[in-house]
């Protein structure tokens, strides 16, 4: 039996199509009408002491967070999205702290989102670009200038600045001041670059921990064993791969009393005699064949190096649970070449400016809770540097952790410019070529100067 073709009446066809289009138009109009109105808000910009206080009138768009239901008042039930970077032990503590907060405040639901480290920066920036950032964002110092320049962050309230001043370890507040002189949020994790030495190996070779970078170079020369063109042992080994190259060389550069950029951030400043020496020092301490990456460095350190990689604040976590079991380690603090200084970075809690005040208040309350002594100790117990003076008291006997905390005032971050990612790429490429002996340190710095000045001058 042949199935009869189904006929659609043309009028019906037009009717249904018209209804569909009409539905879309009405739906769109309703959506537009229900969208919160654009309002002009007076935004007071809180500035850190010492800078000029300003009050600005800004046109801001008040957006109702997509996660809240308009019919339910935010005070009764609100979901706060919190984005953090992937680091399992750290994530567990932060998740536990969020759970503790939610237990205390049942009306608040914290949606803790974890993103892998290499992608989180781009995702955070993209979320701001899409006008849909998380309510609570954890942001590393490298990406802060981009958000600061775009004026998308809420300055920290006065009480938080006071807390930073009174309760945090010395130097912490200064680390939180951004390029525009404003504090946008407290830090919850420092990364301080200090050399770490394998005490057993130092004793075995009857060596004292070096105090300057040049002393370390000498020790490295004594200790390095090369067989068949491949390094089998080294006194010290940076892992020269990707962003680590810039992170480490800049630390050495600071100890040589130089800066990456001029203070007005308009030109490259490291192409000097000391800058060249700092790069020679750094390059001579790179043994890419022995320690081509972070993991190989761990492996090498456990076996034969007298001096290992500077594992910043995470070191203690590694010592407790990571690849350094049964190894006695120590750090003498920042190595002093011409000045006592080292490189650091920090993770900050920041709050997007775009959300309504009541939401932001809740977010600041969560940050306050996260930076309370009990929660800080949870991180410190894990191996992170304690952020609060009170927590530090419990680590008085711990020489290792104390050395890191004592180093905080001697640290300096990357120059606060949103062009840093591009500058860092140039440093990584040119210093990498110097490590590979493709070019000399002098040539590397000359090329860096040319390319970085071009970036800063927005020239192609």
């Amino acid at each position, binding site marked *: 039996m042949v199935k009869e*073709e189904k006929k*659609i009446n043309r009028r019906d066809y037009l009717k249904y199509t018209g209804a569909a289009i009409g539905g879309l138009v009405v739906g769109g109009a309703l959506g537009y009408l229900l969208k919160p109105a654009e309002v002009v808000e007076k935004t007071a910009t809180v500035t850190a002491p010492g800078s000029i206080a300003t009050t600005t009138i800004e046109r801001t768009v008040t957006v109702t967070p997509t996660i809240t239901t308009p019919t339910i008042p935010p005070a009764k039930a609100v979901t706060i999205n919190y984005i953090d970077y992937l680091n399992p032990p750290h994530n567990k503590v932060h998740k536990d702290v969020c759970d503790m907060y939610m237990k205390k405040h049942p009306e608040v639901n914290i949606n803790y989102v974890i993103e892998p480290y290499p992608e989180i920066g781009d995702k955070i920036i993209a979320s701001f670009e899409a006008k849909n950032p998380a309510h609570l964002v954890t942001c590393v110092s490298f990406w802060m200038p981009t958000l600061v320049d775009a004026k998308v962050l809420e300055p920290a309230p006065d009480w938080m600045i006071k807390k930073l001043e009174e309760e945090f370890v010395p130097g912490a507040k200064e680390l939180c001041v951004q390029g525009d002189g404003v504090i946008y949020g407290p830090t919850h994790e420092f990364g301080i670059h200090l050399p770490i030495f394998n005490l057993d190996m130092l004793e075995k070779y009857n060596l004292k921990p070096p105090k300057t970078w040049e002393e370390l170079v000498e020790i490295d020369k004594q200790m390095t064993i090369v067989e*068949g*063109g491949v*390094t089998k042992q080294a006194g010290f080994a940076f892992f020269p791969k990707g962003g680590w190259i810039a992170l480490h060389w800049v630390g050495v550069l600071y100890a040589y009393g130089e800066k990456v950029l001029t203070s007005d951030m308009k030109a490259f400043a490291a192409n000097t005699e000391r800058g060249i020496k700092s790069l020679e020092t750094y390059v001579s301490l790179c043994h890419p064949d022995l320690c081509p990456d972070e993991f*190989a460095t761990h492996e090498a350190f456990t076996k034969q190096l007298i001096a290992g990689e500077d594992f910043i604040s995470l070191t203690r976590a590694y010592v407790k649970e990571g690849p350094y079991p049964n190894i006695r380690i120590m750090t003498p603090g920042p190595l002093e070449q011409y000045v006592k200084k080292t490189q650091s970075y920090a993770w900050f809690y920041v709050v997007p400016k775009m959300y309504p005040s009541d939401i932001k208040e809740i977010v600041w309350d969560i940050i306050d809770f996260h930076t309370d002594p009990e929660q800080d100790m949870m991180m410190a117990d894990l191996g992170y540097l304690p952020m609060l003076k009170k927590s530090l008291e419990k680590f008085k006997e711990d020489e290792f952790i104390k050395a890191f905390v004592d180093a905080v005032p001697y640290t300096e971050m990357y120059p606060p410019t949103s062009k840093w990612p*591009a500058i860092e790429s140039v440093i990584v*490429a040119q210093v990498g070529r110097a490590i590979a002996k493709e070019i000399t340190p002098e040539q590397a710095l000359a090329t860096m100067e040319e390319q970085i000045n071009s970036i800063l001058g927005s020239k192609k």
Partner: protein
Amino acid sequence: MKHTIRLSDRSRFIVTALLIPIGWFIIFRLYPLCYTLYLSFHTYYLLSGQMIFQGLLNYVSILHDTLFITSLKNTIYIVLGLSIAMWIALGLALALKNIKKAFIRNIFRTIFFIPTVVMSVAAAQIWTWMYQPSYGVINYLLSSIGFKPFLWLTSPQQVIPALIIVILWKNLGFTIILFEAGLSSIPGIFYEASEIDGATKWQQFKYITWPLLTPTLLFVFVTGFISALQTFTQPYVMTMGGPGTSSYTLVFYVYQRAFAYKDLGYASALSYIIFLIIFIASYLQLRYVKERVWA
């Protein structure tokens, strides 16, 4: 008077079935393509949303960009390396075809194909460890047969060959399968007839296998060429473009420009330059090789 549109089940099915791919094509292909082209004429500042029209400045700058030239050279090096590798795949496919026992043939086929199903990032990580000059298993094995250790990924001269080996290891199985499919599509009757005429194995290869395999060869060559030009995972995971800039490839450079430099306009222009390179090279391949393809 009633006007009716007769839509058969078949027509309705076609319309419905086409709506999804067309929608998908417009949203995920056409729009990004057009927007990337638009971006390539601008300098776009993320977050502030500021977009400044630059005309052809990005394109002109690329031509004077030493890093682009380095990336292009490295990519061509990889393309050439992998082109040679194609013949290895053909040889292996021919060898497999000549294995009479299906069981043994399947074992080899599986061995060659396993790397293809391994995740690229995981494979790259494993190879990074294997290439480690001091502790790596490759140098250990080479030293056990009297070779001096290689620096592999840490040497500007050895890094590209090291990456080619990884890409080859990863893609070889799939290429062999393609050649095998091409070989099995050649009717056996041709070989039987040639045997009766007294043809040698070489003559069979020259006058039967080769001409009838040319469509597959063309396909493998063009797709392999395009995929080699798009090399990204291995340099990103294994070397981050290093040492220095020795393993920068075109797509890695686009990524660097877009996500490290946050220079989306320049990265878009670079993407279009790569598109042009692929387009011209593929066109030339198709034009000049197609004439020699037996179809």
